[in-house]
């Protein structure tokens, strides 16, 4: 039998924060987590968080997990690969996988922070290998760096569906489409824009009808639905994919709470069945607290705040210290975080347990796009989400998120020096920079970029629109690397395109041959043209292009059109090169034999 003052079940953001606050006040704490490392869902989150600096805004999830672990002190014991399997009146039973044995813990207080599990949905063959939870795919690719497929279909467009889609692209996979049964995307607009500008199709009012395949997924059938979410016959579309990600929501893991006599209520706005709790995260059972996704599906920042509130309240009960000020200030933080339109559901759900307070925020968007010709940021963040790193990162105070973090950011172009810090800090990747007429006929666009390969200075890339459509060619004029991996790529685009270009595609150049005989690639030709070999004859001498066995019949036309594109000249203006016999390789032997024939 192990004795502890506090048992924390689950070492995700909620449980860790509870343990941090309690142990800081000297409470002997034991954290049990069934995973192989602490951090819960955070360890697989590679994107930067929203929120404000006090709660790790603009820090990537897995980094947050590390920082939280570092805050645990000597009063904390950690047991990994240990599942809490039962809670009885006087004792808690744990199962340790490593020793393959159960043991008992007696705790004065219990904080349940067990998180949630992924909602499973019903469609034909949904049990086939290849149908995976979106969080599961995220675990494999971001925690273990293994991709369980090449081409994915994402079902669900909430934040998880959008984020995991983006992360799949980062890992080098393809996302065939995101399907969403509702008539609008569920997640944040800034997350949506991140995937849209890579051309990922979003199919609204669509759902998955069946997975195809015998041993594993080889495809998926998607169908349109009517107002009652019923499939419309004849609208089926088939996708050739080798994995299907289900991102249709999470369900709180209430089992332990329920067996501990905590009142479970049905609150659909919070994710279904959730335990009752008050503002201090205390349940109806005096010494049992809950926090995080278990208390209602939300996100990691609110999970951390709830965990802290629970930890402080427990410490207050045990040590009799007065921590009411700290608790109250965190409760106010929660009110702020939940003030925006995206938290409306959560507010409604929570109002079943205790009254909700509202705070005001500004809905006024930035309308001014700044002085033409100045290098300046353009903020494309139009939804009231709880986030303000743009404001706090700007060294000159040019960006303001007025009143509260749910307000829309506004920029004072007079104060802005064009340093670009806000562009790389914004977790929504929603800030770009533009400058008109950097050169005769050219504008500059700066985009935040988190993909590989990173282009090189001087490289030509394909400029893409907000929808991922090809717009024009652009030249990379500068690449600014940042230690937190959101790099800034400066693109020179033809005049007038600065308002449209928001992304680019690196041209795939490996093994793209123009001349097969001499094995000359497109990249080599483009580089040579940039070096100043600007007509066919020069290229031929430099690269041996057209000097192979086919006598240039395969490559001559291609080279001329590449020259024409690259130099902006019409094909007529270009020298077509000399034509010399023979047009087909003819052996000297044959020629000699022929000559002797004539004799």
């Amino acid at each position: 039998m192990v004795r502890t003052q506090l048992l924390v079940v689950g070492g995700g953001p909620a449980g860790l924060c509870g343990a941090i606050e309690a142990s800081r006040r000297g409470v002997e704490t034991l954290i049990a987590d069934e995973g192989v490392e602490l951090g819960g869902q955070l360890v697989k989150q590679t994107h930067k968080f929203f929120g404000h600096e006090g709660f790790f805004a603009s820090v990537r999830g897995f980094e947050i997990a590390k920082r939280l672990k570092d805050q645990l002190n000597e009063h904390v014991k950690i047991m990994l690969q240990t599942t809490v399997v039962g809670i009885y009146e006087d004792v808690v039973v744990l199962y340790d996988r490593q020793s393959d044995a159960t043991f008992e813990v007696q705790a004065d207080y219990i904080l349940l922070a067990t998180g949630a599990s992924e909602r499973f949905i019903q469609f034909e063959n949904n049990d086939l290998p290849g149908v995976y939870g979106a969080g599961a795919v995220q675990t494999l690719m971001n925690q273990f760096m293994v991709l369980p497929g090449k081409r994915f279909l994402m079902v669900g467009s909430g934040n998880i569906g959008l984020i995991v889609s983006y992360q799949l692209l980062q890992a080098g996979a393809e996302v065939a489409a995101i399907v969403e049964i509702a008539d609008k995307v569920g997640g944040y607009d800034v997350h949506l824009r991140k995937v849209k500008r890579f051309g990922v199709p979003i199919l609204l009012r669509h759902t998955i009808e069946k997975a195809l395949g015998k041993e594993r997924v080889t495809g998926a059938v998607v169908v349109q639905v009517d107002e009652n979410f019923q499939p419309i016959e004849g609208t089926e579309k088939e996708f050739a994919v080798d994995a299907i990600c289900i991102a249709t929501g999470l369900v709180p893991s209430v089992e332990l709470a329920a067996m501990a006599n905590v009142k479970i209520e049905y609150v659909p706005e919070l994710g279904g069945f959730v335990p009752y709790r008050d503002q201090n995260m205390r349940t109806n059972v005096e010494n049992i607290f809950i926090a995080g996704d278990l208390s209602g599906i939300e996100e990691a920042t609110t999970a951390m705040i709830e965990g802290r509130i629970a930890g402080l309240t427990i410490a207050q009960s045990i040590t009799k210290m007065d921590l009411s000020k700290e608790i109250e200030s965190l409760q106010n933080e929660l009110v702020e975080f939940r003030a925006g339109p995206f938290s409306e559901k959560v507010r409604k759900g929570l109002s079943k347990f205790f009254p909700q307070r509202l705070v005001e925020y500004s809905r006024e968007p930035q309308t001014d796009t700044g002085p033409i010709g100045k290098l300046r940021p353009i903020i494309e963040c139009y939804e009231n989400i709880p986030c303000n790193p743009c404001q706090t990162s700007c060294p000159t105070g040019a960006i303001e998120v007025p009143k509260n973090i749910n307000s829309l950011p506004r920029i004072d172009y007079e104060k802005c020096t064009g340093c670009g810090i806000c562009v790389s800090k914004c977790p929504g990747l929603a800030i770009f920079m533009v400058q008109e007429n950097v050169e005769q006929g050219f504008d500059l666009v700066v985009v935040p970029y988190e993909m590989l390969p990173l282009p090189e200075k001087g490289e030509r890339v394909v400029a893409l629109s907000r929808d991922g459509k090809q717009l024009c060619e652009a030249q990379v004029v500068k690449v600014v690397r940042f230690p937190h991996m959101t790099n800034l790529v400066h693109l020179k685009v033809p005049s007038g395109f600065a308002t449209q270009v928001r992304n680019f595609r690196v041209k795939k150049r490996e093994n793209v041959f123009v001349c097969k005989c001499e094995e000359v690639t497109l990249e080599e030709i483009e580089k040579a043209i940039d070096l100043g070999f600007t007509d066919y004859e020069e290229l031929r001498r430099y690269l041996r292009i057209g000097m192979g066995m086919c006598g240039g019949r395969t490559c001559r036309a291609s080279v001329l059109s590449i020259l024409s594109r690259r130099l902006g000249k019409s094909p007529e203006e270009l020298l077509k090169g000399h034509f010399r016999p023979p047009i087909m390789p003819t052996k000297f032997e044959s020629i000699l034999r022929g000559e002797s024939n004539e004799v």
Partner: protein
Amino acid sequence: MRRILEHPILKRRSTRTVKFYFEGKELEALEGETVAAALIANGIDVFGETERGRPKGFFCAIGKCSSCLMIVDGEPNVRVCITPVKEGMKVQRQFGRSDVSW
């Protein structure tokens, strides 16, 4: 190849390899990863069969759904998504509920 070799944000944590056996065949895994991750990396998606004889793979990868039960070193019903792979481990597909020893 299912391993992500280059990533814009993440760095590889371990390059030390361990050997394990899947259905008697020797495979390579990276130290610290789960059996499920190692199998997927080796191109194995089918972890077993259900009672009805349908193929089974993982689903949640965090120990919640029990979709990934396999026989590990003779022990049935092991959730391989939260079981770290070890040198010499013997992993087998599980058919149905296997011999449960509750």
